[in-house]
């Protein structure tokens, strides 16, 4: 029996000469292999019927010249749209200038909109009620309520449901220090 490589070539009709004759003699008694070769021949026929013939690969010189020719042809075909392209390039030049002008306009508008302390008829922001803060109490059973206290001139958060500090907690001797403290309590009124 021929080896596998020989059989594969025989199925593809790639064998010639003595080796083809040897395998043909063997295959006469092998209807299964004959059927395989017939199937391969049919598939080849189908492919030849439906696929175009292979083109010769272009030489490098022809390849480049074809590309140049195609570019030239496309340029000619686009010629009628020249006026549109000119307009587009004009806008391409004009766009950055427009963007800069837009930014300058927005900046100017911003300086006009934000009130300055000297000219604004509005009260200072510090006197306006502060925005309502978000309160988050991760401990279960703890609730928090926020309000602005005008009498105390303070923002107040009332916590309910907090576990009491154990009575065993003693105030450390160093906790309450005289103000200003030597190291940290003196405030520089004019920040640098």
């Amino acid at each position: 029996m021929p080896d596998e490589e020989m059989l594969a070539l025989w199925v593809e009709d790639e064998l010639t000469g003595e080796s083809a004759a040897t395998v043909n003699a063997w295959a006469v008694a092998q209807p299964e292999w004959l059927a395989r070769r017939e199937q391969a021949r049919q598939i080849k026929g189908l492919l030849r019927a439906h696929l175009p013939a292979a083109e010769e690969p272009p030489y490098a010189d022809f390849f480049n010249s074809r590309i140049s020719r195609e570019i030239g042809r496309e340029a000619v075909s686009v010629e009628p749209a020249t006026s549109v392209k000119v307009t587009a390039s004009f806008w391409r030049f004009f766009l950055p200038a427009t963007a800069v002008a837009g930014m300058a306009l927005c900046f100017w508008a911003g300086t006009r909109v934000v009130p300055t302390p000297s000219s604004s008829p509005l009260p200072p922001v510090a006197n306006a009620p502060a925005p309502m803060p978000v309160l988050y109490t991760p401990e279960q059973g703890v609730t928090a309520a926020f309000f602005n206290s005008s009498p105390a001139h303070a923002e107040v958060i009332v916590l309910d449901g907090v576990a009491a500090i154990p009575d065993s907690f003693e105030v450390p001797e160093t906790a309450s220090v005289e103000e200003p403290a030597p190291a940290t309590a003196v405030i520089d009124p004019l920040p640098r």
Partner: protein
Amino acid sequence: MNRRRAITLMALLGTGVATGQTDPGKDVIGTVTVVVYYGTNGDPSAAGPRTKAVPAEVATRLSREQKLRFSKYLELGRDMMPLYRTYENWAKPVHPSQEILLRFEAQSHLSKDLMRMDVELWLSQKKILKTDAAMTPDKPLLVLGPEWRGGRLIISVELKPGKPKSQDEE
């Protein structure tokens, strides 16, 4: 010998570069003062001997608000810490105890004087409250907190411009 000199020179240069580098995130943009008050309608001596009387104006201010009204106020502790531009910081008003801690961090400048801050109150190593209060100088955030020895603790958080003198010296 030459190699030793070269190494010394490189070390000196490295030190110079390291000290010359500044982290803008460490800019001090304010000072946060945290004070723990004890308000009680009972016997104030229950707080123990290590307390301090509060100034009259503070007692008046607190008692003006009905929710914070007590017959007697004492100061248990205070801490003053710099507010960094990008970094968080912690205040330990009853230092060295960590029973009451306050974590704070700048969040945004709502205006020249109004700053939104992340503020967290930690009691007994547990986060009890987190808020993004909008702070203004001289307008404290007062938190009516837990009970203790027959009274309640009031934690005052106040933001001031500038920085502690010690920061300048650093």
